[in-house]
């Protein structure tokens, strides 16, 4: 077995002890015998054949004909399996959804199978993180070598752990095939190889306690990440090479390797988001689009002065994520949603996007009802957008009217963009009326979310504003309760912890209900997300990601919701101040598809991280919590950090070299 890059067997100590053969480099006499495979296929004939084949390969096989059952099996035995093989077409859950869930929650290698060998489907597998794709009918020869994926992943995880800036081959292939990218990867790879050799001894020594690396870690703080994202955006995601990013960032003490490693994770994240969106909406393009948006959105949130801070983001994300875990359909959207929050967007563009995204739901949930006035319209928009992406779900609690106040969560229907826009504009005037119609707009969900209602959007979104601050915690650290509700997910746009918004409450509640519908609209969400992300990408952060741009361009639905949200938000925040000007700007620009030059780079702080964190966490959260992620506006950025850290502690598994919990990317399916 080729363990790769010059590493010696001894250096490959894989700390995984759950499987007998997995020791050291995993190469024991038995290996790969005993590999624990979970095979999922609704076709009983295929399933039986696969089982027999895998048994003949001396693997330990568990077969399962339903994706839901597979997921619960995996969850119950976190370390009970080494690899998963799944069919693409299954009646109860799409194979790609399962793939995403497994990748996020368990970080296991997943192999997809299908009789369909069309390029699009195979590509989908790649973008969703499948480590391999088998065409049916599957031959035993193809199964004999699946152990390589397990080893490779462990090796990669280990390498990531140990080395900064490591670029795994597996991960590498997920990167967009840009020359710049490629060359940078290649360079890094070369560097890595030499570094590997150099560090081998050191690594070997540390092998035994990989979990206690002595290397000083770079802590990717929100600000640092913002700088990073800004630099990446400036360069263009496809052209962002670590060296240049490093130069742009100009942070003393930061090494190129740190950047490279972070970049890698970022890309994975983007890709994943993109894949999710794509999957959902069936788009084939733009890797970056959605991911960018989300990323941006998350960061933008954090960047918001308002309290929407990371906490809320986290909450939202958590909510989103949490939700998704329970429902496969949601999982995708959740991811997207997460990002939604981060829109920082005050850019007009953003607004545009939002508008677009707002699809025709006239009802828009004003997620950010309570959002402190500090929130810029853009951010609101972002939130809104997220909300929208969440789904066309019913969020629409309120219809149009006072939407200006809060994030109009528009779940997913792009048609109502203009509507939203109008509504938002109209709502401008509302600002001062905190207690006003904001709620009526159905922002309720958003507001409720704020409080991290821990309840699933099912209907309890109502969280008194005062609890806003608890939201974040709530969402972040709760394994079960993702207060994601606060965010636009389904209308709960946890937007804001408007402290005084009683009125929001009602709306929120209603929104919550609305959001419920959110879950099922997987498609809607994906669609939203897709659109949204596109817009965001372009808008918020001025993302230069090409893909995102394209996506944005494409989508008519751009992030309008977010724009709207922002609008509403700002109005709310200003307590009467009419930020409408801002909002208007946002909106007016809104109809076009976003193109992002919103220089919101600074806002991208930890969206990425948050995203990761949340993603991981979210999976654990029940659906309900999803809606509860109302971001407490009061939560500041510091909270974000704490959230991350908490999450980290919570999950206990994030050990990114950044020392930041956010990088669950390590666990992302590669």
């Amino acid at each position, binding site marked *: 077995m080729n363990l790769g890059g010059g590493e010696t067997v001894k250096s490959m100590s894989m700390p995984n002890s759950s499987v007998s053969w997995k020791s050291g480099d995993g190469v024991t006499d038995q290996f790969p015998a005993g590999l624990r495979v979970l095979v999922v296929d*609704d*076709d*009983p*004939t*295929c399933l*039986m*054949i696969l089982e*027999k*084949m895998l048994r*003949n390969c001396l693997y330990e096989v568990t077969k399962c004909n339903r994706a839901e059952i597979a997921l619960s099996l995996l969850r119950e035995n976190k370390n009970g399996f080494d690899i998963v093989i799944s069919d693409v*077409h299954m009646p109860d859950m799409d194979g790609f959804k399962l793939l995403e869930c497994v990748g996020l929650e368990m970080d296991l290698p997943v192999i997809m199978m*299908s*009789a*369909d060998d069309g390029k699009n489907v195979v590509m989908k597998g790649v973008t969703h993180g499948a480590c391999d794709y088998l065409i*049916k*009918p*599957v*031959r*035993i020869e193809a199964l004999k070598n699946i152990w390589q994926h397990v080893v490779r992943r462990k090796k990669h995880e280990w390498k990531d752990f140990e080395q900064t800036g490591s670029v795994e081959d597996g991960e590498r292939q997920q990167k967009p095939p840009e020359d710049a990218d490629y060359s940078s990867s290649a360079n890094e790879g070369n560097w890595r190889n030499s570094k590997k050799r150099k560090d081998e001894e050191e690594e070997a020594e540390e092998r035994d306690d990989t979990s206690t690396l002595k290397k000083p870690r770079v802590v990717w703080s929100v600000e640092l990440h913002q700088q990073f994202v800004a630099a990446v955006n400036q360069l263009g995601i496809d052209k962002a090479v670590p060296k240049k990013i490093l130069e742009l960032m100009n942070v003393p003490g930061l090494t190129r390797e740190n950047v490279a490693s972070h970049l890698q994770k970022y890309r994975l994240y983007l890709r994943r988001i993109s894949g999710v969106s794509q999957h959902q909406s069936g788009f084939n393009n733009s890797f970056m689009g959605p991911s960018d948006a989300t990323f941006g959105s998350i960061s933008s949130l954090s960047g918001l002065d308002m309290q929407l801070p990371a906490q809320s983001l986290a909450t939202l994300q958590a909510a989103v994520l949490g939700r998704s875990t329970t429902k496969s359909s949601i999982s995708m959207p959740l991811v997207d949603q997460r990002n939604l929050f981060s829109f920082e967007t005050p850019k007009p563009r953003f607004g545009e996007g939002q508008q677009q995204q707002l699809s025709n739901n006239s009802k828009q949930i004003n997620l950010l009802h309570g959002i402190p006035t500090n929130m810029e319209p853009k951010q609101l928009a972002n939130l809104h957008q997220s909300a929208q992406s969440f789904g066309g779900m019913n969020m629409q609690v309120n219809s149009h009217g006072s939407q200006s106040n809060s994030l109009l969560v528009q779940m997913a229907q792009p048609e109502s963009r203009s509507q939203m826009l109008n509504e938002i504009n109209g709502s401008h005037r509302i600002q001062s009326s905190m207690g006003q119609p904001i709620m009526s707009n159905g922002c309720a969900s958003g507001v409720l979310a704020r409080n991290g209602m821990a309840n699933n959007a099912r209907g309890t979104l109502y969280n008194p504003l005062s609890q806003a601050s608890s939201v974040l915690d709530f969402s972040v650290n709760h394994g079960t309760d993702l207060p994601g509700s606060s965010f636009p997910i389904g209308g709960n746009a946890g937007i804001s912890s408007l402290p005084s918004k009683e009125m929001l409450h009602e709306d929120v509640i209603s929104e919550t209900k609305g959001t419920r519908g959110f879950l099922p609209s997987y498609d809607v969400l994906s669609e939203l997300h897709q659109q949204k992300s596109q817009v965001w990408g372009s808008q918020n952060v001025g993302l230069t990601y090409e893909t995102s741009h394209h996506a944005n361009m494409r989508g008519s639905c751009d992030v309008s919701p977010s724009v709207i949200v922002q609008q509403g938000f700002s109005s709310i925040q200003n307590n009467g101040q009419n930020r409408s000007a801002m909002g208007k700007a946002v909106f007016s620009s809104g109809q076009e598809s976003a193109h992002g030059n919103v220089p919101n780079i600074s806002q991208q702080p930890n969206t990425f991280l948050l995203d990761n964190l949340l993603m991981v966490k979210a999976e654990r959260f029940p659906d309900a919590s999803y809606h509860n992620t109302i971001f407490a506006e009061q939560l500041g950025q510091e909270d974000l950090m704490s959230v991350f850290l908490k999450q980290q502690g919570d999950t206990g598994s994030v050990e990114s070299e950044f020392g930041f919990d956010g990088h669950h990317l390590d666990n992302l399916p590669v």
Partner: protein
Amino acid sequence: MDTTHLQRQAAFVRKNLFDQGYLDEQFIQLEELQDDANPNFVEEIVTLFYNDSARLIRNIELALENSPPDFARLDDSMHQFKGSSSSIGAKKVKKECTQFQEYCNAANAQGCIRTFQQVKQELVILRRKLETYFQLARQTA
């Protein structure tokens, strides 16, 4: 004893199945999986396939009853069935399935209906031949 004779007969039937295109290489994969622990593996799989195919065939029939039929749904159902039949190496059946899917893509309802009859027919023919083969093979075991 007719063992040798039966063996030869079984081999002959088997060879025919391949030569005439009823079975493909996947069937050999199944045969290779058969061992002492599972001495009747191939037959069990084929039986399982035929039992399950009834359900899939029924799905397609129901979908075909609509006029105009939902071609996307038809294509999807047939895709499932095709995957199943390919897993046992049912070559001719698989070919008809592919043809059916082409008609779906062309939204040709008549073509679909016609081809579907072919699919069912090939299924029946294959089943009979395999049953003969398995009987012989069992006797020679």
